């Protein structure tokens, strides 16, 4: 497998009152083609910043971010992004939000509609297809954002806590759907989560980040086979890896992050 | 203000007609001689001064011939005739030689002004009416830009605008008609007062104006210099302006008032305004020209 996304000694600092704040320091990471990587780490450790770089929305202060071997110069529809803050277009209904990206492709109107319909069904918003975002609950907004990213069916999915606002069952269902799509259509996924269970269940590798300054602490290889089943989730091996990751994250002192 | 009977609030327009007497009265100390002080305020036109008079913010003001319908319709009183002006012309683009050439042409004119009057007189003398031309109403500065840029074929407009702005740009312009060609119709300028002005106070002011008027008639060159100084303009500009003004001595004006000449001037203007619709009917000049006071003040 070749490398899809490559971070090479990436640094990021932000100007703040009285100086610079180092958000990321010397991050290097290769994500292989068709790999599923999850990223965990304490709040504020730079996960969203790292994902933003792969998306082409954040420029590194130093270092290189490559996708398919060439430097990232901006966003592109082949890299779908689900934002931590949903970022729905408030003036469009659920359906039109989902169709937004589709209409930018060369697909026919009927095909757009069809695909949007399918994505909306997938996240269980069929009855709310014509609702405006302001009338949706938090979880429904998040599902709409997921549908929008899924609809264009990008090669790379960059997902920032996509299931954070969902109840456990919806979450499990969407996890399974995501894994199914990933394995069938061979996509590359970079997935940020706070849920260690989720991180281990989904990923081939879990990237554990540390804070102050933001950097990669450990990368845990999840040796478990796909497809991941409920059985695997309950296996002692899963529990062991889960504890490893937990330990890697939380030998750190969270609340000073 | 006029309340204590010593301060005069006087409005004027910044040209030779409007400014010369006030400049002289101040310079010669004529106000002081009569126990008055003057607070003079410059305006851009007559109607604004009439409004200010009406609102009680001004005691006296100056108007040109175009604004005479305002006192005639009872908005204020004329206390003295100032001068006669001969500044208005009908001008045409090069190539136009007579009024009859204007048939069907676009003629710009500020409506209800002395420019409009001269256009009407000239048309009448040529046996035409406004129906024969394409009359385009516009304000004075618009007439200048429109004529200079060739957007109109002719205009009813006046000096100094013709001299300072139009002729330099259109040297070949033709003066098709001029006020000087209508001896029967006079274009007087005047000083007006608040309707409720105190008679004694008013008489004092008239006396000052008469004194200044005689000084102006006796010293025409110095009068131009005084006006230019007050207006902060080139003496040459003001001189060109004054060339189209006829001043008269107070004695002359008194006799013209007595023999009905002034009355004829005023009636002539009123008739014009009735034609344009600015007046419904021509009132008796005695209703708005305080001839008695003028004569009493002159002591004759």
């Amino acid at each position: 497998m070749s490398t899809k996304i490559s971070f090479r000694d990436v640094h990021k600092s932000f100007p703040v009152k009285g100086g610079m704040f180092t958000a990321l320091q010397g991050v290097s990471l290769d994500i292989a083609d068709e790999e599923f990587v999850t990223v965990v780490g304490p709040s504020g450790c730079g996960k969203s910043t790292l994902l933003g770089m792969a998306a082409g929305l954040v420029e590194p202060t130093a270092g290189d971010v490559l996708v398919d071997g060439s430097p990232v110069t901006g966003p592109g529809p082949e890299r779908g992004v689900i934002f931590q803050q949903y970022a729905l277009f408030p003036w469009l209904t659920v359906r039109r939000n989902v169709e937004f990206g589709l209409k930018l492709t060369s697909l026919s109107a009927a095909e757009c509609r069809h695909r949007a319909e399918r994505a909306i069904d997938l996240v269980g918003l069929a009855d709310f297809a014509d609702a405006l975002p302001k009338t949706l609950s938090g979880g429904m907004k998040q599902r709409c954002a997921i549908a929008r990213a899924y609809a264009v069916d990008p090669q790379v999915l960059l997902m920032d806590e996509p299931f954070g606002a969902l109840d456990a069952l919806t979450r499990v269902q969407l996890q399974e759907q995501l894994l199914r799509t990933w394995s069938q259509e061979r996509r590359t996924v970079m997935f940020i989560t706070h849920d260690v269970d989720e991180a281990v269940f989904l990923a081939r590798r879990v990237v554990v980040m540390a804070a102050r300054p933001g950097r990669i602490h450990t990368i845990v290889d999840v040796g478990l086979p796909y497809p991941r089943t409920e059985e695997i989730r309950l296996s002692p091996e899963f529990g062991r890896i889960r504890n490893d990751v937990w330990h890697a994250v939380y030998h750190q002192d969270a609340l000073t992050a | 203000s006029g309340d204590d009977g010593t301060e005069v609030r006087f409005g004027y327009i910044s040209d030779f007609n409007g400014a010369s007497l006030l400049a002289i009265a101040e310079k010669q100390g004529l106000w002081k001689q009569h126990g008055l002080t003057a607070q003079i305020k410059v305006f851009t036109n007559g109607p604004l001064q009439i409004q200010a008079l009406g609102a009680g913010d001004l005691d006296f003001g100056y108007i040109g011939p175009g604004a005479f319908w305002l006192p005639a319709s009872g908005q204020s009183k004329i206390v003295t005739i100032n001068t006669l002006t001969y500044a208005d012309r009908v001008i045409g683009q090069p190539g136009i030689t007579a009024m009859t050439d204007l048939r069907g042409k676009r003629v710009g004119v500020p409506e209800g002004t002395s420019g409009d009057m001269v256009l009407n007189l000239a048309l009448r003398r040529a046996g035409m009416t406004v129906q024969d031309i394409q009359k385009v109403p516009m304000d004075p500065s618009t007439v200048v830009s429109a004529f200079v840029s060739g957007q109109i074929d002719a205009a009813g407009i006046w000096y100094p605008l013709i001299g300072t702005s139009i002729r330099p740009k259109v040297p070949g312009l033709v003066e098709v008609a001029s006020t000087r060609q209508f001896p029967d119709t006079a274009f007087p300028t005047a000083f007006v007062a608040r309707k409720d002005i105190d008679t004694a106070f008013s008489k004092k002011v008239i006396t000052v104006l008469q004194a200044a008027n005689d000084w102006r008639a006796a010293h025409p060159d110095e009068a131009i210099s005084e006006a230019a100084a007050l207006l902060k303009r080139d003496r040459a500009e003001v001189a060109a302006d004054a060339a189209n003004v006829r001043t008269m001595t107070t004695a002359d004006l008194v006799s013209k008032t007595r023999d009905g000449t002034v009355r004829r001037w005023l009636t002539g203007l009123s008739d014009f305004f009735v034609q344009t619709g600015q007046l419904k009917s021509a009132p008796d000049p005695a209703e708005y020209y305080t001839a008695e006071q003028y004569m009493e003040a002159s002591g004759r």
Partner: protein
Amino acid sequence: MSVVTVPDETTPAQPAARSRTGRTLTLNIAAVAIGLAGWSALAAIGVQGLPGPIVVAQRAGELIADGTLAGDVLASLRRVLIGFTLGTALAVPVGFLMGWYAVARGLLEPYVQFFRTIPPLAIIPLAIVLLGIGEVPKIFVIFLAAFLSSVVAAFQGVVGVDRTLINAARVLGASDRTIFIKVVIPASTPFILVGMRVGLGSAWGTLVAAELIAAQEGLGFRMQQAQLYYDLPTIFVGLITIGVLGLAMDRLLLLADRHLTAWQERR
């Protein structure tokens, strides 16, 4: 499925909305009544030269009867509509250019800000020299006023568009053009509508100045004529007609606003 489709209009929401509109209307009428009363009072105590509502109404009747008012309204409305439409239509892309591209901002902003402060009266001589005395310079002066008022609002709207929304569109593959049309314009609609409403006021407010340019009819022209004759009732008829037309157009814009920004969570 708990979405109940109610085909007739008797859902609880409707009467409430209707009564709210009703109350607003009542208040508006009350406001107008108070205004008329105040005006009558001022005229009655004889404020110098102020005609009362009845005199003005009579004059309006005459002007309507002889068709003058209709002609004036048509002429003025045409000028304002064309000038205003062109002005605001240009303001949006120019505001966009200024908000989006630093180079455009650097080049255009001095002009926009400079001309914004120059009175329309002062533009007239130049407009005549360059554009003649037909309809074009009149519409141009109105256009300029509307444009200059709206462009600041459009610009500020573009600058203030939530960055996350732009990013969301970019990652979906939207080009600058698409982002402009599909994100920046809708997101800055509230600002653009403020600009349009202010621009509408400017457009009407400039009408008198515009009709100084050799107009043969129009509300501004009629008012100038009336000023020459000190015909205050006609001036008032003109003022009120302009006010009412402006108000009506403003209501239309407001209606558009309600529809276009229904997605906003608002009080």
